[in-house]
């Protein structure tokens, strides 16, 4: 069944199916695979006359700037850890909210709560950045309250410690409504028969949640986690850029690859170096998802992505 004949026959047999998937394939070819040619920029010294292939080949030289200051490890660590926190905390909070919302019976309250939770999702990070600044600056809300109740004010912008929590908090807060809806949909898909049977057996609400809802949400949870892991090396640039901006005091705890690259390139615009950093990021992300998927496939084959 292998070889050329097999492929042609297969193509002919599933003509309609292939036709249906063609737009998607085309989309990925045009928007994901063709632009990949640009990766070659990472190995050239760009000049306007030569363009992509005419520019001089310089090998790995463009990657040097990432290694030079020795910050690469810190950046990678920050990027991965922040994203892990966003993904795990975010999903857990979303599940909790979804489960509670599903149990609520008052329709008006349920709708209102859901809308309010969803609202931050539509705010731009620019606005959130302004909120954060007005909350934590010298004359901000938090410091004013601290002073009012007779405590010392705290210079948030001079210490790295609080920012880890502030950033994670705002990321989770912003994505909460969106994720909750996904989990809520998954909960709604669970057949009522399970719950009825559980009720007849005399299970409390908490027992129902623990033994029916949560186990049935597990596939959704794992799928979403896996999907998010693909982007674990991609920092949320707008989040960090808008909240931290150009405050060097906080970089140790808040600098991620994306913001570092952005700064390098605004100061010293260089296509080669920019592409090199992007390539490093993609490569690392690719390796990471392969490893995670491998582990999952070993432990529980049904849940693996591929």
């Amino acid at each position, binding site marked *: 069944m292998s070889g050329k004949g097999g492929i042609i026959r297969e193509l002919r047999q599933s003509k309609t199916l292939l036709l249906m998937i063609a737009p998607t394939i085309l989309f990925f070819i045009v928007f994901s695979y063709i632009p990949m040619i640009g990766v070659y920029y990472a190995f050239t*010294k*760009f*000049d*306007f*006359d030569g363009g992509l292939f005419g520019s001089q080949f310089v090998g790995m*030289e463009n990657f*040097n*700037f990432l290694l*030079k*200051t*020795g*910050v690469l490890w810190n950046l990678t660590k920050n990027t991965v850890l922040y994203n892990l926190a966003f993904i795990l905390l975010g999903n857990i909070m979303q599940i909790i909210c979804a489960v509670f919302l599903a149990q609520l019976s008052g329709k008006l309250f349920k709708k209102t709560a859901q809308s309010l939770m969803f609202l931050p999702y539509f705010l731009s990070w620019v606005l959130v950045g302004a909120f954060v*600044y007005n909350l*934590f*600056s*010298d*004359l901000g809300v938090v410091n004013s309250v601290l002073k009012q109740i007779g405590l010392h004010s705290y*210079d*948030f*912008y*001079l210490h790295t410690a609080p920012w880890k929590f502030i950033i994670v908090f705002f990321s989770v807060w912003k994505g909460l409504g969106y994720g909750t809806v996904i989990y809520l949909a998954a909960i709604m898909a669970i057949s009522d028969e399970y719950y009825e049977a559980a009720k007849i057996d005399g299970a409390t609400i908490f027992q129902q949640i623990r033994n029916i809802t949560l186990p049935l949400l597990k596939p959704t949870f794992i799928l979403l986690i896996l999907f998010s892991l693909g982007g674990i090396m991609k920092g949320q640039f707008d989040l960090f850029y808008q909240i*931290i*901006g*150009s*405050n*060097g*005091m906080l*970089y*140790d705890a808040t*600098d991620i690859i994306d913001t*570092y690259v952005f*700064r*390098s*390139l*605004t*100061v*010293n*615009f*260089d*296509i080669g*170096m920019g592409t090199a950093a992007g390539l490093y990021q993609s490569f690392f992300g690719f390796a990471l998802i392969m490893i995670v998927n491998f582990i999952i496939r070993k432990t529980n084959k049904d849940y693996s992505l591929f």
Partner: protein
Amino acid sequence: MRKIKKRWTLLVSLSMLASLLAGCGGSNNGAAEKNNPATSGGNASPSVSEATATKEPLKKVKLTWYLVGDTHKDMDKVMAEWNKMLEKDLNTTVDLKFTTWNDWQTKYNLLLTSGEKIDLIFASSWADFYKLSKQGAFLDLKDLLPEYALETWGNVPKDDWGSVTVSGGIFAVPNTNPEYTPSGYVYREDWRKELGLSEFSDLNSIEAYMDAVKTKKHVTPINGMVYDNVNVLFKSWNDFQMIGGNELIAATSYDTPRDIQIVPFTDKYEAWVKKMKEWADKGYWNKNSLSSKQEAGDFIKTGQGAIYWRNPSSAGGFINEVKSKNLNMEISYFPFTRFHNYVLPTLPSSNAMAIPKSSDNPERSLMVLDKLRNDPAYFDLMTYGIEGKHWAKGKDTKTIVIPAPGVDLNVTPRFDIASWGWRYEPNMLKEEGGWDGLDKLKEEFKPISKPDIFGPIYMDYDPVKTELAAVNQVFEQYGKPLMLGLTSDVDASLKTYRDKLKSAGIEKLLSYVQEQSNQYFDEKGIQ
């Protein structure tokens, strides 16, 4: 059909007229016109039609121009009027676009690298003009200029062309508006008088002023974004002459150009950052100043700030704005040139217009630029806005009134797009009733002017670009907080800063800068 015929007749008659004029000395005509712009101000000047009418009729072209900075809310109206004239004279329309000031540098670079079709763009030594020219972003205009921008080719001084020449090619048309743009502070003069403080003359007087503003007025002297405000004071007070657009490597003074050092490694720097720690602790600026995104000047206007860094002409703009908005305050200006009693003229290449390689119509674009620079009708409209709305004629032909009578500046703000690239002094108009300090400063600067021996040093950085990128990161992360006295232990953070700079390769960068500078100094015979 009839319209075309009519045009042809006009053209033929014009060309006859032109050849007639050329016969009796067309060049004189051009010169006379330059000296007397008022007479030809209203209608299209004949001298340019003369050049075009003798050629084939121009085919219709749409150009795209880019400027840095923000647009004006009446830009569409201005462009509509401008294009009307342009279409008639050169059968061209221009689509003028802006990068906005927000992240302008990134956008500017991307516009050029992405190969977007642009026919003319603002270029400047502070927008990587030399680096981009070397990389081949701009078109060499050497051969096009005498043919398509003859008037400009003639009236830009030879030295100015030299300043935009990179390895033999001319890559931009520089502005022709010699000026001085040293740093200085605008400040609340009324508060200084009220608090009985002496006038600014040195660091101590500035410190005393800030102290009084903080303790007696309970206002943060430098509010909002602070870094640049402190950095310019640092450079000017210590007479550091930064070389090659770099914030870290400088000659230690104007008189010792060959003594090039790494600024953060000097004793002066150490003493300075210790002082800044004191200033920061005393609350001369906020602890969150690095995260603030508001200009210090905006706080002055609302009475919440006292000091703002400006050059003389932008100080003039600031003071005029405060005046015309009737804000109840007196603003004065102190140029840092008084610290060391000399001033450097601004390089012509710091404001210029260039044609990117992607342009489809470089010839036409040059023709339009030539017209913009030299025809007062075009120049005034693009530089000052619509007459009767944004400005009105003053008491003589060289002065204007802003805004036009009966126009509210709060509704129709000043027309202040980044027109620097095409400015041509004979066409510049003076604002009546504006801040008179500018002229006084010009008088003050003239006798103490010294040639700029640092600006023209061309730095490519290509052999050390890895080090430069790394060093800039270190500077962003450690240098800026240190300069603003935000770290808790100055000695420790200074040590970290220096160590990080070393490991980022600043010494390699230094020897590169020294080598390039010495090469230039040798060439020019500067010791």
